[in-house]
């Protein structure tokens, strides 16, 4: 059920980020969502894209250090309180979260949240039981 996230190591140098997005653009890869965690020395860029196989191939070919991680994608309503409801479910189930980021779809009246947790299956089960709709890589490609 989980979706694939591409993580890229970004050196703390001018132009480092634009060279990555440029490679993706030239490979016709569309970014659906992204988040960056940064320290003084480096950044970690996490991406959800429409074609992770091409993105992985092109970035590796260009010498980038990358890692594919499975993360949970969940669809939530685009209204106040919806995120809280989803997070409440995880909290109640005792699931620790490493990080999360959200994105909106162009066409639908929905927001999506990407969750990085220790155990995807437990988190997915908890969210589904609470009536949330999880998204897959196929869904991401259609967004």
């Amino acid at each position, binding site marked *: 059920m989980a979706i694939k996230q591409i993580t890229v190591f970004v050196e703390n140098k001018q132009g480092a980020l634009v060279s990555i997005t440029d490679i993706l653009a030239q490979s016709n890869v569309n970014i659906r969502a992204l988040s960056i965690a940064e320290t003084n020395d480096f950044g*970690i860029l996490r991406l959800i894209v429409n074609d992770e196989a091409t993105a992985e191939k092109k970035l590796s070919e260009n010498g980038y250090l990358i890692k594919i991680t499975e993360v949970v994608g969940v669809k939530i309503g685009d209204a106040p309180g919806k995120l809280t409801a989803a997070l409440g479910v995880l909290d109640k189930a005792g699931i620790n979260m490493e990080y999360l980021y959200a994105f909106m779809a162009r066409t639908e009246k929905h927001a999506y949240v990407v969750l990085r947790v220790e155990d995807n299956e437990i988190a997915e089960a908890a969210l589904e039981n609470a009536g949330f709709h999880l998204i897959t890589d196929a869904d991401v490609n259609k967004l």
Partner: protein
Amino acid sequence: MEQKYFQKDIETMPVEELKKLQSEKLVKQVKHVYENVEYYRNLMDEKGVKPEDIKGIEDLHKLPFLTKADLRDAYPYGLLAKPLEECVRIQSTSGTTGRRVVAFYTQHDVDLWEECCARAIVAVGGTNKDVCQIAYGYGLFTGGPGLNGGSHRVGCLTLPMSSGNTERQIQFMTDLNATILCCTPSYAAYIGETLKEKGYKPEDIPLKAGIFGAEPWTEEMRRGIEQTLGIKAYDIYGLTETSGPGVSFECCEQTGMHINEDHFLAEIIDPDTGEVLPEGEKGELVFTSLDKEAFPLLRYRTRDICVLSRKKCSCGRTLIKMSKPMGRTDDMLIIRGVNVFPSQIETVLLNEGYQPNYQIIVDRVNNNDTFDINVEMNPEQFTDKVSEILSMEKSLADAMKTMLGINPKIHLVAPKSIVRSEGKAVRVIDKRKLV
């Protein structure tokens, strides 16, 4: 037939005979230098030493030392002992320390240098059936030309690759079944990493031996290279000032490098007092060229710290052995008052599961030394969690602190992001301006 020595009579000569040979050569060489090199003649005169005072190797200590500073002062022709008409070649150091050395060679000098390299190749099992891939830089750098000549002398099929273009190195290595690889240890490790990334297992790689030198490396690094490439890795030592690689070389025992003593007379001195130390004691290595015509340095201080040993070697060679240099009198860093050798940092990295690809950056901010080490991360260590990378940096810094006594700031960087020039990585950047 398996060839064990390139020049058996010399390499296994009884020690007394060898010393007699050295004495004869030294007497002649001192005379040659005194007559032809004004710079050294002045040094001898200042010390009150005449050529006739040198009757054998027991008188060597009477001669003045030469240092890198002398080479700089005498640049370019001041130490030349032959007319330029008789010289056929120059080689030069990279000048990374800011002092470029230019060494001159007559055809005789080139021949003896190549002979030394041939001895090294035969010592690792090389014969005319071998394919010898030379991935040292060619050109002014002595690595490529020296091993190239040695490989010819042994009769190996020589692949004059020069350094860099790793894709092409791998293509020739696998297509032409290279059996011996000659390059810097850091480039050997890099080729190994690249082969591994491409899915090659050690048994798929045709190489059987490697001759690696021109920069310091540790036993841990040797084991790493041996495992990835599925080979025996041998050390070779030399410096442009004396000829180039092949001043000394390792045999099958892998317990130190046999010095080609018929050409290079070695001493160990106390770097502070200049006093000659007895065999087995650790100090600065000093070389006297016994045969070189064009650029014959007498008592040249290498700044390499090592130990000499004449313990009987199972390979049958009687040539004295030098340890791997344990550091240099000059690249030792003093950071916050603590002596730090880059080799210690390398040991910690290997112990902690990192490749020895690093760069030390020292600076002084508000009168305090800053000590940063950039370390290339292994691809398999990379994670999407910042906290994990920070904790890897922390635990590596702790391991460094245990070894060095001071705490560096560790920065993990992407693999292959530390610049390698001529296959030789720049290990230390000292930005301190201490006047």
